[in-house]
């Protein structure tokens, strides 16, 4: 049953491909697949370095998107003989932060043309340094937005309506009757303040509007009137105003020097004591120690975080022990279709860069 679902997903993605390639995907008969594989190996394709194919890396379905365009070598195989493999590699496909892009690795890849990241955040990459080696950096904006916006809303709702606590009470062996005190807070018609109104922030606004939420947003630049009206969003030039008025503060910014520690003691103290902080950006956007204090003292009601610093948190971190914190382990883009779209975009970027063409999603340093 699961295979059929993957097959449908892969088929959808391959629709715009050439007829011959469509044929390859449509026919999954094992022997034909092997014949095609041999043919593909014999063609002159560039080499790409990846982490691995398997549970800790790429699923087969994702590798199948890469293979028509690149010979793949896993990091483990690469390390067996870096002198042999290194000079062949023109693309590094970066998934979940692996392989780690360090100077020592880059030094072994003299032919490298591109580091193609899976995901939109590239705060883990020193872009100016990589560029100085003549290597491009690309990311995957756009395709991650729906899934990430969905997680933002999932965390907001689960926190507001105490879904996790509710489940734990419902299944607790000691529960004898339905509790009345599992009271949540309103979502409908409450005020949602979005910090960072890029692609993801805007999708969040769209979803919030469906709940008749009042939408405020803060961004480096203001959106068009048309954009604002479409989601009923009001611009807050001053972030403090957004913090004071919001029932839910949603962080959807990139991590940059400007946004590091954006939410600290002062910002948390401006928030309502009934407010919830939701973070789908990066852990470092929030001063975590300040957050712990704010949650312990009731300065804010609760926090729901898909991201922390580090990931995962040390097992004795105070955030893990607070009852009013919901944490998910960076699952923002974790759906199969999103992953497949990300890999397709990585491949498109890498193919263009290797050919010396403009990559669709090249990241330039500021």
């Amino acid at each position: 049953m699961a295979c059929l679902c993957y097959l449908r997903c892969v088929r959808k993605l391959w629709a715009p491909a050439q007829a011959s390639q469509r044929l390859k995907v449509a026919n999954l008969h094992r022997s034909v697949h092997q014949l095609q594989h041999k043919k593909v190996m014999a063609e002159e394709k560039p080499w790409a370095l990846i982490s691995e194919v398997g549970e800790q890396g790429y699923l087969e379905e994702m590798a199948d998107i890469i293979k028509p365009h690149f010979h793949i070598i896993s990091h483990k195989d690469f390390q067996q003989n870096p002198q042999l493999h290194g000079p062949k590699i023109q693309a590094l496909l970066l998934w979940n932060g692996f392989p780690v892009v360090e100077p020592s690795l880059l030094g072994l890849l003299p032919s490298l043309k591109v580091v193609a990241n899976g995901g939109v955040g590239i705060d883990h990459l020193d872009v100016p340094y990589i560029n100085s080696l003549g290597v491009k950096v690309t990311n995957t904006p756009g395709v991650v937005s729906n899934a990430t916006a969905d997680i933002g809303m999932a965390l907001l709702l689960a926190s507001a309506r105490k879904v996790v606590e509710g489940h734990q009470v419902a299944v607790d062996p000691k529960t004898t009757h339905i509790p009345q005190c599992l009271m949540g807070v309103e979502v409908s018609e409450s005020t949602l303040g979005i910090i960072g109104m890029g692609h993801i922030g805007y999708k969040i606004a769209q979803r919030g509007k469906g709940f008749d939420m009042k939408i405020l947003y803060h961004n480096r630049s203001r959106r068009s009137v048309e954009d604002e009206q479409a989601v009923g969003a009001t611009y807050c030039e001053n972030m403090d105003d957004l913090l004071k008025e919001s029932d839910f503060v949603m962080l959807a910014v990139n991590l940059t020097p400007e946004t590091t520690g954006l939410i600290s003691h002062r910002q948390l103290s401006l928030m309502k004591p009934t407010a919830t902080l939701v973070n789908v950006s990066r852990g470092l956007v929030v001063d975590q120690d300040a957050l712990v204090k704010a949650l312990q003292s009731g300065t804010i009601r609760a926090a729901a975080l898909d991201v922390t610093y580090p990931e995962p948190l040390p097992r004795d971190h105070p955030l893990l022990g607070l009852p009013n914190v919901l944490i998910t382990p960076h699952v923002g883009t974790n759906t199969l279709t999103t992953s497949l779209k990300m890999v397709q975009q990585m491949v498109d970027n890498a193919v263009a860069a290797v050919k010396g063409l403009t990559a669709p999603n090249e990241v330039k340093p500021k």
Partner: protein
Amino acid sequence: MEQDKPWALISEVGGDCGLLEDHLDIVKRHFQVVCYQDFLQNPELHGPQVQALLMWRYYPEAQPALLRMLPSLKVVSSGGTGVDHLDVSFINGLGVKVSNTPGVVSRATADLAMGLLLASARRILEGHLVARDPETRRIPLNLVGTDVSGATLGIVGMGDTGFNIAQRGHGFEMDVLYHNRNRRSLEDEQAVGATFCQNLDELLRRSDFVVLAVRLTSETTGLIGSRELELMKPTATLVNISRGQVVDQDALVQALRSGTIRAAALDVTHPEPLPRDHPLFSLPNVLITPHVGANTPSTGGRMVEMMVESAVAAIRGLPVPNEVKPN
């Protein structure tokens, strides 16, 4: 004058089933109040005085034995939309009206329906447990969920609550289908991008998320049984915010065990709470909340206001807002 105010019978103040203090204040503006326990101490004293029974979380139960002790009773005002726990015909037969509080709970309940849908689809509970687990050393890569954006949402029961769910699903760019006794207006359908499915089977076949938002009646009891679950996609999720009895629970257990459907998220079961050894608890793909659909601060207050309004009207012999007639 305080003494001129009519008497209302309630279950209790506080505790697990009682009115909250804030709610009591709303009631006391119009009524003198006696709690069930106090009433039982001396039914002959309070019985003839009570003109309204304000039912909160199904208590006090409107059993014949109790009703017989309330000769002056004019109205049973029930908090919530569902009246499946009341024998409306029997109560009307005693010359007593019944009222409920429709509409006011529909947004909070729709919010919870989406909360359950998203939590199930994106595996929020598992994620939280992994994030907190003392053994967790790295971020897991296999905690993969299913898409909500762009998926097909099938709503069974398109009253106030169902319509609110459609609106929310529309915000997620979902493809919204609905099945209802009656078709909604074109305007309503367009507002939330909803497509009518005359045939429930068609909705079940096409949906990635099936949300039950019907009232419990004789027609909707056991509406979702093994046949209906078989029609659903193996990747689909069932969300129930109606009543437990709308679903054949044994069939649901089988369907979840065998992978006939992917998962279920339930705010309601039968009974509530479930017996502690119920098979639903042993399944990893079930999310259950303890009937918290209306549990927000303002919803409770508004419900009590409506109950009081209906009760006051009934006692004055005026038309009763939100009166429930037998079908």
